[in-house]
């Protein structure tokens, strides 16, 4: 009898019908709410359309100039600027939401500046910036005159004189630098007073109502949800504010770290009352954010640098991932498979975004995700400076160095920063490699979810020592479908829909309407949702629970082993691809240098 009861408790579980899941679970509500946001954004860009009819004119000018000169002329850059100015996010609902959801601004020593600046302070800032602005204006006029003169001379020679072309390109580059300097000075000289608090309050109410739609169907206590949400939101605002401190920003310490930290401080000191726990819906926020993130995984970008790019990302990264996971399981024997795969994918794919997607796909514990992200952020802060220093000291070719950085540095902003410390070409290659690697997130999340529901979870459902249940082909499919985290479907569907959309339309139109319209809107909200999620994670973790997975330093050993292997293998493969097998690609990429 007892044995029978044990057997039953080990293998049976209360099954919810798919229909019921579709309106009671956070996985499905994440999909519905993200879809609602996409519909609103799409409606906005079509009703309040940016002047897309002007795009072909700008593009024609750019192509004519490029065909004539073989390099970007003054007219080319001016047309490009106008082309980039056509954005769906400047109009309609999207523009209104972007204004309301403004994140705290950067600050140096006075945190209040992040959300509030008085008219007096703005006037002071304007006055202080005036001399710099005037100098920048004068500098721009001179640079423009020189660039025009140099371009005229090159044009007079029908762009056939390479020496004159070179001089023109250099003068145009100086003019662009002067323009960028003026634009930065102009921002300061046009500084206006601001107070983000009222708009943030309205935004808070909007997203509280937005999430409460799902919360109601998921059976949460709405009264408690409404009571606790403002506290979670204020902590999210504070996390953004702290991350905007000038040094923190430059070190790449993002809001994720501060959101976790603030949550942890509250939960481990004064504690978290039930009404805040009800509002701190980690899964709900994170999954909605992930479906929105899916829209930015554009499959068309996979072939940007052709075979060498594919090898450095889609061959090296899975090899490193599998090897690191194997090392964690077999060599250092990490007790939690979820922690192992979360740290492995965080380290070898693309840091935070991959960690969130993988942790959600395998249902890792909150403290496991926190640990993976915490380690990655600390290592990234070191790698931003260490890797470019090594590349510069050893005189690595910029394309090789860029590919190495793109394949190894975890977070995308840090990749660009590290590349910038080597040079423009290294930055461009690093950014492109990372972009191609980012597409892997969807594949890995899908693979991990499938592996977990087919292999890991059935093993867990058995008593120790028993053989996991064997599925028939049909039974396995049905089991996978039942256990599969459904939000991943939303994530993949968003990626597929937007990839098709971007691939099917003219690139400029796609950029104006989709990338700088619908996706800008999704991106802003996604940032807030993830920030709320990380605050919620911190609020749910007890310090002692965080100590448990750290025991024996195994996650650290795993990270160091994986990253060491990643650095070495990427270095070799990037050299082989860009310096030996596909030298032509490298030469083409260096043509502008």
């Amino acid at each position, binding site marked *: 009898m007892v044995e029978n009861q044990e057997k039953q408790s080990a293998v049976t579980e209360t099954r919810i019908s798919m229909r019921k899941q579709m309106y009671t679970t956070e996985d499905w509500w994440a999909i519905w709410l993200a879809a609602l946001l996409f519909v609103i954004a799409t409606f906005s860009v079509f009703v309040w359309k940016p002047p897309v009819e002007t795009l072909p004119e700008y593009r024609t000018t750019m192509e004519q100039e490029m065909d004539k000169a073989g390099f970007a002329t003054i007219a080319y850059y001016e047309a490009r600027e106008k082309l980039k100015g056509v954005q769906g996010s400047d109009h309609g609902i999207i523009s209104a939401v972007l204004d309301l959801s403004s994140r705290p601004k950067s600050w140096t020593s006075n945190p209040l500046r992040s959300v509030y600046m008085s008219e007096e302070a703005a006037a002071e800032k304007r006055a202080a910036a005036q001399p710099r602005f005037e100098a920048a204006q004068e500098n721009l006029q001179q640079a423009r005159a020189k660039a025009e003169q140099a371009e005229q001379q090159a044009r007079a020679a029908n762009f056939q004189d390479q020496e004159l072309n070179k001089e023109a390109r250099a003068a145009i580059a100086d003019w662009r630098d002067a323009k960028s300097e003026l634009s930065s000075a102009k921002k300061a000289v046009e500084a206006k007073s601001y107070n983000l608090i009222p708009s943030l309050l309205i935004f808070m109410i909007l997203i509280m109502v937005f999430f409460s739609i799902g919360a109601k169907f998921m059976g949460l206590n709405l009264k408690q949800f409404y009571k606790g949400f403002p506290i979670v939101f204020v902590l999210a605002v504070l996390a953004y504010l702290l991350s905007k401190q000038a040094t923190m920003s*430059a070190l790449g310490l993002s809001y994720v770290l501060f959101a976790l930290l603030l949550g942890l401080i509250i939960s481990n000191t004064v*504690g978290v009352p039930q009404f805040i726990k009800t509002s701190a819906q980690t899964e709900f926020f994170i999954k909605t954010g992930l479906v929105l993130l899916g829209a930015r995984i554009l499959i068309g970008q996979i072939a940007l640098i052709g075979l060498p790019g594919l090898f450095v990302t889609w061959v090296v990264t899975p090899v490193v991932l599998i090897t690191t996971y194997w090392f964690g399981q077999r060599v250092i024997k990490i007790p939690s498979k979820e922690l192992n795969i979360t740290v492995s994918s965080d380290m070898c794919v693309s840091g935070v975004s991959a960690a969130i997607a993988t942790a959600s796909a395998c249902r*890792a514990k909150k403290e496991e995700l926190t640990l993976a992200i915490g380690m990655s952020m600390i290592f990234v802060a070191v790698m931003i400076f260490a890797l470019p220093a090594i590349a510069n000291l050893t005189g690595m070719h910029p394309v090789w160095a860029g590919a190495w950085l793109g394949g190894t540095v975890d977070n995308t902003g840090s990749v660009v*920063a590290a590349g910038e410390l080597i040079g423009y070409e290294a930055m461009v290659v690093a*950014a492109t490699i990372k972009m191609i690697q980012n597409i892997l997130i969807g594949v890995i999340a899908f693979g991990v979810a499938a592996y977990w529901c087919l292999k890991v979870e059935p093993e867990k459902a058995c008593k120790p020592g028993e053989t996991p249940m064997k599925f028939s082909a049909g039974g396995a499919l049905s089991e996978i479908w039942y256990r599969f985290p459904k939000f991943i479907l939303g994530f993949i569907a968003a990626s597929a829909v937007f990839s098709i959309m971007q*691939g099917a339309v003219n690139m400029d139109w796609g950029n104006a309407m989709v990338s700088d319209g619908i996706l800008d809107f999704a991106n802003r909200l996604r940032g807030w949702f993830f920030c709320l999620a990380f605050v919620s994670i911190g609020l749910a973790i007890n310090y002692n629970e965080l100590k448990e997975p750290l025991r024996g330093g195994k996650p650290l050993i795993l990270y160091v082993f994986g990253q060491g292997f990643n650095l070495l293998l990427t270095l070799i493969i990037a050299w082989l691809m860009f310096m030996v097998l596909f030298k032509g*690609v490298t030469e083409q990429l260096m043509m502008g240098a």
Partner: protein
Amino acid sequence: MNRHKQAGDGQPSPASSLTPWLRLAAAIGLLAAFMAFAPKLERLPGVGQRIEVLRESGINVGAWYYDDVEEYFEAEEYVRKRLGKKDRFQ
């Protein structure tokens, strides 16, 4: 992540002699001290100069997805132009 119980009961360790509110004040104090101390990291040899380069370039170093970094779009355009992948402009 939902297979586990809601972690953290938020109760401070009974062994602690500090009250929860004192612990909170101490944690906030530590965080404030860190924020005040952090800018001094820029004085470390080599670090300050590199940070200045990054600050001038305006890169969003803390961004963890490419669409938050303007340079990614510039990079895509550069690569397409250099490798002659213009088809999507037509």
